[in-house]
């Protein structure tokens, strides 16, 4: 792993939201992980576990409560001149879950895609601008006739392709995809996932792929992080995580997925996660520790010894 270059480093990131009466929601409560150049990191967990908030804080949509996000060694949240900020934002882009809500209905597809090109001054002439738009449309499997239409004229899968084209327009290095396929039909999901993988191969993109569909996450990701109540409880390579889940929450989550095979479904047993099963003592420190190379689990000192004994 040492030869891999870190693109993003997330260090003890916290994102708290005040909800009034002096109470706070700890949406993200101290997560630490790295994203390597050219990889896809999957982030899974149930709704409310903080996976989307993590993504949004990384890209700077929220100011972090504490902790640090480094992109190529530069802090995302530190004070910057507007020029520096613009440069940073060009390198990171986002694809959203709802292709119906994330495209401005009053702009043509060409204007939606070219907005980033205009802001960053990436095209000098009108011809060059349209040439870029046509290229991008073809890259994502649409054609140039689509440029002058409006979002409502497209299906969900096509709109998601427009969202991807918009993200690609400024030639980013890193894309956060927040549930990009959840709103799409099964047959269309595969089209969009194949497109994302193809673009990654061609352009060397790095993805943070946030989703709750675990089978699709496993398929697209190199490594996967599992979140539970604002904490990352397990992080490992995709195969390893599915084959040897260690944290009881990961085990419960994996055992709950129905598989498209009637025979295994008839015998599948589900395990249930109960946070009290750890029997942590009051104030016992929990740390994210490496059990086997590249496989991290949130555990206490005692559990660490136990897991080490079992799994290595």
């Amino acid at each position, binding site marked *: 792993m040492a030869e891999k270059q870190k693109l993003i480093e997330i260090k003890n990131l916290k994102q708290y939201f005040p909800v009034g009466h002096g109470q706070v929601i700890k949406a993200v409560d101290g997560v630490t992980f790295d994203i390597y150049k050219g990889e896809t990191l999957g982030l899974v967990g149930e709704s409310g576990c903080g996976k989307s908030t993590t993504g949004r804080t990384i890209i700077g949509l929220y100011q972090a409560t504490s902790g640090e996000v480094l992109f190529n060694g530069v802090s995302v949240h530190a004070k910057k001149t507007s020029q520096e900020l613009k440069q940073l934002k060009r390198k990171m882009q986002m694809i959203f879950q709802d292709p119906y809500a994330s495209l401005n209905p009053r702009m043509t597809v060409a204007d939606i895609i070219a907005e980033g090109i205009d802001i960053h001054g990436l095209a000098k002439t009108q011809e060059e601008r349209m040439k870029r738009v046509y290229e991008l449309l073809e890259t994502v499997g649409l054609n140039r006739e689509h440029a002058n239409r409006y979002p409502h004229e497209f299906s969900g899968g096509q709109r998601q392709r427009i969202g991807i084209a918009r993200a690609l327009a400024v030639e980013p290095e890193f894309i956060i995809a927040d549930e990009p396929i959840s709103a799409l039909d*099964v047959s269309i999901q595969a089209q969009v996932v194949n497109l994302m993988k193809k673009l990654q191969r061609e352009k060397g993109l790095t993805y943070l792929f946030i989703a709750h569909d675990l089978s699709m996450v496993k*398929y697209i990701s190199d490594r996967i992080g599992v979140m539970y109540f604002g904490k990352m409880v397990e992080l490992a390579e995709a195969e390893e995580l599915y084959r040897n889940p260690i944290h009881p929450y990961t085990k419960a989550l994996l055992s709950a997925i129905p*598989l498209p095979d*009637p025979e295994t479904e008839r015998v599948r047993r589900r395990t249930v996660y109960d946070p009290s099963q750890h029997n942590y003592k009051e104030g016992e420190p929990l740390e994210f520790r490496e059990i086997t190379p590249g496989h991290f689990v949130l555990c206490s000192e005692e559990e660490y010894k136990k897991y080490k004994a079992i799994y290595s």
Partner: protein
Amino acid sequence: MEKLLEVKDLQVSFQTYGGEVQAVRGVSFHLNKGETLAIVGESGSGKSVTSQTIMRLIPTPPGKIKSGQIIFNGEDLAKKTDKEMEAIRGKDIGMIFQDPMTSLNPTMKVGHQIMEVLVKHLKMDKAAAKERAIELLRLVGIPMPEKRVNQYPHEFSGGMRQRAMIAVALASNPKLLIADEPTTALDVTIQAQILELMKDLQKKMGTSIIFITHDLGVVANVADRVAVMYAGKIVEMGTVDEIFYDPRHPYTWGLLASMPSLDSDDKSELAAIPGTPPDLTNPPKGDAFAPRNPYAMKIDFELEPPMFKISDTHYAATWLLHPDAPKVEPPEAVKKRLRQLSSNYPQPVIVKESE
């Protein structure tokens, strides 16, 4: 086995500015007592319209049942007046919707919404109804039902609301339960709980279930039989084993192959179904799936395929089953599933129109 519901050649259309949308184009199936039939298909395939037509929830106009029969308990629901349907809807047929937040009344206590069914259909008095409502909440696994019965839907979590919806739907002991994507909005762990609950209740009460979903994992978990819909028609129907281990229609192949499998480490490209579903204001000539079908033959663009019978329970509408059709290999991902099923006929048989 006794048939509870039989739908015969159902056709439903909607009148829109763009023309007449033929949402359901000749659907026939039956449902036995105590069994679960899963209907799968993409959005716009007509699966929700079919089930809402059985409940007669289609607004008319713009909707219209153009032809067909819905025989439920020996009576044709397609011919009932709205008034007559009121006595059946909620009593003999219950329905669970996808989004529990918009289908419960936010201004009514959860308990009242269950009691409403009991008072209207079972003519219970208020005190007895409340007691039964508490019992039902306990049955669907809601802790402290005595307290919960007096709460409003916003005080419930998503999974709890879906449980409350199931309690409303089951309150009158319906013979048929229609569940339209009941777990799609829920997390996997909650989904697993709801599916277990539904199966458990079915065992206790002998309810028949029509389960609409696009998640093939859920289908494998709950269904006895499966109907695959495409562009307003059933293209394949069979027992759950027949659909998963011996699929015959290229669209079913496409659905099965486009999903990544959890237990394989295969990272090769997913076999996506190219293109998008057809526009049903102007259904294409021949097989509606032909333009997206890599196995399409010339005849698919000319003439609609008839229904072929592969076994007593297994039907598929594709020309590939015709004796004159060339032999084709299904996609790799499907080939891995295939098994010899002993119940198959030696040769697929064309189903006559009258059947």
